[in-house]
């Protein structure tokens, strides 16, 4: 077990060391501080696309641009799936995807969720994977960075309504952050044995002499962005447990770092962008403070033998190895599970359904916290900033001032938007689960009975509503009910947060900045970190404790 905790420490130290310089780089990119030749190419591209680089959109226009762009992306993914049978790059001759699953998948990839109601290698053609899905992997992550950038501009502005140009933010995030990082990671992964080819299948003779068909394809390129963009949608159905996606412990560690890399780096970018690096460190520290205990819980729980296995007389000293890859072992699997749910990534290298009840509770609760512990690319940080607004509101009053964050007063409108942004994903998760509990279609899809069945439903809706995309397993989700219900929940969880966040940004932008004094609540010290972590945990706990009590908690207690 100590080796697993050692891995956690090494992982976090390594993450911090890489994230700090990357954060600075991203801040420069978002501020448009690019080398002259790059600027020239960029301005040519913008001219071709008819984008006015100098435009500063007020929040309704920024929000409209985000929504229109995402809607178009969603439509493209839907149409490509439906028509893939008649389109090229389909060596396996896969037919068009059914309407419910196509809708679910379109929403899923546009919203950076990557919930997969399908098995990739047997459902999606290479064209769909590359043009529809991988494109969304990039632009959905870039959308998150853009919305975050708009919020930062709102906080930085001095009584001017502009939040910058969505098109510029989107392009810069994609071209100068996501694309180069993905190219590097894809090449490294390919060097480690991750598959990258246009061929459909490889036929091999097994040791027994039987013939086996192995699905292959452009895997490395998709895996790189799936991890970096907190997407998580794998090329294969078993995702990162598949040896062609994640062959070795080295690729496992690299992909693990890639999962949290950009969400972590954006904290430091934030510090640079608001001209106070301590603010970025405080937000990063809050994320780590919430991450470590839950990672510890899952690591500890997975090192405990399961009751069922202990009774068989098998050696269980290694902990709970059910549903885990031998090449990763308990530690790397459990750490992956918390990392992928802390970030709204959702890729899996082990079966979460087979985790011990407490081991599964960690990942589930990390999602229910609203995906703000690292969270999605961009979305995790803007989500945490919404919580920061709530935290300063309550705590700010306690120091005898009307609350402010980074010099911006928090008034009624800000409170309304922050409340909505927190409320919608939770509402979607709870109501979705409740509907599934009463509908026969909902209950029928459950793989296990009892409290575990409830956990499966709760996990699915929590994953969708918080745009994680991680699957617990056990639940059959390609039926019409779950495809549509989770599709809707994903829409709510993504866009009904983005719009309030942009409204918040717009409202902040129009306000005057109040200079700090010794009467101002500092938002960079350890005190604030504790407070913010406490608010996130408390809101998450108060919302989901009853539900969790009927799921993983009961399971744990009745072992």
């Amino acid at each position, binding site marked *: 077990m100590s080796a697993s905790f050692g891995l956690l420490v090494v992982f976090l130290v390594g993450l911090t060391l890489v994230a700090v310089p990357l954060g600075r780089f991203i801040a420069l990119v978002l501020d448009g501080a690019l080398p002259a030749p790059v600027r020239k190419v960029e301005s040519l591209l913008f001219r071709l696309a008819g984008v006015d680089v100098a435009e500063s959109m007020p929040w309704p226009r920024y929000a409209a641009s985000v929504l229109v762009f995402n809607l178009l992306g969603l439509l493209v993914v839907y149409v490509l799936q439906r028509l893939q049978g008649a389109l090229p790059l389909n060596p396996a001759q896969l037919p068009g995807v059914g309407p419910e699953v196509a809708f679910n998948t379109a929403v899923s990839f546009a919203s950076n969720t990557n919930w997969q109601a399908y098995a990739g290698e047997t459902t999606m053609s290479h064209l769909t994977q590359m043009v529809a899905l991988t494109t969304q992997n990039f632009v959905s992550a870039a959308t998150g960075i853009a919305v975050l950038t708009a919020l930062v501009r709102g906080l930085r502005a001095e009584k001017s309504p502009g939040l910058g140009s969505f098109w510029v933010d989107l392009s810069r995030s994609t071209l100068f952050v996501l694309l180069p990082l993905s190219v590097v990671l894809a090449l490294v992964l390919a060097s480690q044995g991750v598959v990258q080819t246009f061929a459909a299948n490889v036929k091999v003779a097994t040791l027994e002499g039987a013939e086996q068909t192995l699905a292959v394809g452009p895997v490395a390129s998709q895996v790189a962005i799936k991890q970096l963009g907190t997407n998580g949608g794998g090329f294969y159905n078993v995702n990162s447990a598949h040896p062609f996606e994640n062959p070795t412990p080295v690729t496992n560690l690299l992909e693990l770092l890639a999962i949290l890399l950009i969400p972590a780096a954006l904290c430091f970018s934030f510090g640079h962008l608001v001209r106070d690096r301590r603010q970025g460190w405080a937000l990063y520290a809050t994320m780590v403070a919430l991450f470590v205990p839950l990672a510890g819980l899952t690591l500890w729980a997975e090192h405990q033998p399961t009751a069922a296995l202990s009774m068989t007389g098998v050696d269980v000293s290694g902990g709970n190895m059910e549903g885990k890859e031998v090449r990763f072992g308990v530690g790397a699997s459990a750490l992956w599970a918390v990392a992928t749910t802390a970030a709204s990534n959702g890729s899996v290298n082990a079966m979460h359904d087979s985790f011990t009840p407490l081991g599964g509770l960690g990942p589930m609760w990390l999602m229910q916290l609203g995906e703000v512990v690292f969270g999605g690319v961009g979305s995790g940080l803007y989500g945490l900033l919404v919580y920061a607004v709530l935290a300063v509101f309550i705590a*700010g*009053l*306690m120091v005898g001032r009307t609350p402010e964050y980074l010099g911006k007063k928090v008034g009624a409108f800000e409170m309304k938007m922050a409340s909505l942004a927190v409320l919608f994903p939770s509402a979607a998760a709870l109501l979705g689960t409740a509907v599934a509990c009463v509908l026969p279609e909902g209950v029928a899809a459950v793989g296990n009975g009892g409290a575990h069945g409830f956990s499966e439903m709760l996990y699915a809706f929590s994953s969708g509503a918080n745009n994680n995309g991680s699957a617990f397993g056990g639940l059959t989700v390609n039926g019409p009910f779950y495809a549509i219900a989770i599709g809707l929940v994903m829409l709510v969880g993504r866009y009904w947060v983005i719009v309030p966040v942009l409204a918040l940004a717009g409202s902040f932008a129009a306000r005057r900045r109040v200079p700090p*004094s010794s009467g101002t609540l500092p938002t960079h010290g350890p005190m604030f970190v504790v407070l913010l972590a406490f608010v996130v945990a408390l809101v998450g706990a108060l919302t989901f404790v009853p539900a969790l009590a009927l799921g993983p908690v009961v399971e744990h207690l009745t072992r």
Partner: protein
Amino acid sequence: MASISSRALFEPAIVKQALVDSVRKLSPARMVKNPVMFVVELGSAFTTLLFVHALVTGAGDAPWPFTLAVAVWLWFTVLFANFAEAMAEGRGKAQAQSLRAARKDVMAKRLAEPRHGAAVEQVSSSTLRKDDVVLVEAGDIIPSDGEIVEGVASVDESAITGESAPVIRESGGDRSAVTGGTRVLSDWLVVRIRVEAGQTFLDRMIGMVEGAKRQKTPNEIALDILLAGLSLVFLLATVTLRPFSAYAVTASGSGAVVTLTVLVALLVCLIPTTIGGLLSAIGIAGMDRLIQANVLATSGRAVEAAGDVDVLLLDKTGTITHGNRQAWALLPAPGSTELELASVARLASLADETPEGKSIVTLADSKKAATPDASGAQFVTFTAQTRMSGVDLGSRRIRKGASDAIERWVTEAGGQISPETRRAVEDVARQGATPLLVAENARIIGVVQLKDVVKAGIRERFVELRRLGIKTVMVTGDNPLTAAAIAAEAGVDDFLAEATPEAKLALIRKYQAEGHLVAMTGDGTNDAPALAQADVAVAMNSGTQAAREAGNMVDLDSNPTKLLEVVRIGKQLLMTRGALTTFSIANDVSKYFAIIPAAFVGTYPSLAALDVMRLHSPTTAVLSAVIFNALIIVGLIPIALRGLTARPAPAPELLRRNLLVYGLGGLLLPFPFIKLIDVTLAAMGVS
């Protein structure tokens, strides 16, 4: 009004009225303004219906005694919250009583023309319109607020200010405003009425004190939204429990679906009823405390803004210094001694009734100066032309006055000023003090240093303010040299010298443009623009009507130092609100531990492990949580009414302390209390 500050928290008469009012406030039309408590009222009504249903059918949602108990305690929760509000209002109303006594209808002498001696018509004060002109004579009560057109009179304003000493009011200048309800003691005044009937200062004051026309402040609205948002989250968490529970019952094959009664109980326990119930009481009580400090705010918004103020513009005179220069040191000229100077200066000031003159006598006495016989003395009074005063005693002609005036006088008499004395004069001026030359016949005896004396303890107040992050700026008409010296002595952060009303206004605008919130005090008509511009503007009650209308607070004591108190009260109001919100939310954790195991132990017996308080039974567990939730509102009424003790400390320190007390305290405190209530219920035979 002095008696008000000593009023007991729970005065029987107020409590009695508040009990009645808390029932009256159950009207849904009133409750709907408070979203959290409205939800509780709906829950109370709903459980009452469930009870009736269970009683009639014999088999309802839950056993009827249990439903009844929950319903009763939910109603109590609403009533307790209403009681808190009614208590706060009641305390205000009691204060309004004494004011109302002053607002009785009086007969006014309306003048046909705005001059003394015009035809008089007797009318009721309630029929007076704006711009009517009335005559008020000795013994009359001034019928309404107005501006003096003609006359000088002494006025007893004790009905408003509580101050029994009469004040002089006269036309023109900064003391021309009179307030309805005050009484003219001597002479007469011709007053132009400035407000319509029913809108006088007194009327507005009564309205504010009673909290009748209270509007929610911006911060209250924002907090209300947060509380409503939280309530919605909890509504979802409880509503969805019904299908979750139904699924669990089917899956486990044991137990019963959670009852609606328990769900309503859980909902009410979770939504922030503590702060929701006390929120308006906190606001009213904040206003109340301001009035106890004899400050009247025109809106709650102003009180809130006072907590945010980070720049204080303070008039030098009256706030920082005593406002009159006093003799501070005696600097003898070459050839004379301090004792001689003291003796001569004393003689020159014997007939000088100004504070400066008196202070010279006091200083000379402290030097044990010999007292010459002053009989037969001819006193020379000060005039603006000569700019000196003094005394002729036989052949001794003694003068004191401005240095240039005395110098001229001595030169005319054939004397001259020595270079040493001239240097002494310049030194004194450089220190920001005023040099006064004393001469006898043609000889200059020495220099008396007159100094603006900084009030005792004011320096410490500024240090305190700095710790709170508040910048102090001294405003004075003095020259920059004098201003700098006093500013350094008083320890203010900055000063504005040779201040004109325009410069003052520009300074406020400058700070506001930098994002600061500015507070100031003022009394003169020429202060009005600056008062109107400042975020918190405290007008002196002794000031002009224009100043009083431009400000958003009026200090009845006309004490400029009061601004510091106003800031403290504003901060206290916000802190109380924040602390009780934190407390309320932190409380929820314990209630989960009480209710969740109780609600689901039938379905999943293993959930009993969550019952960390080891409560007697599911019934007592739910009831204990509900009862605690109701009683804590009553328990916190004193804090809501009195406010948190706002010790001045920097923000991080305040946050740490309040988080520890109200955050951690709120988390832990309910556990023992819920257990205690549970034990009591079990002892009473509830099972």
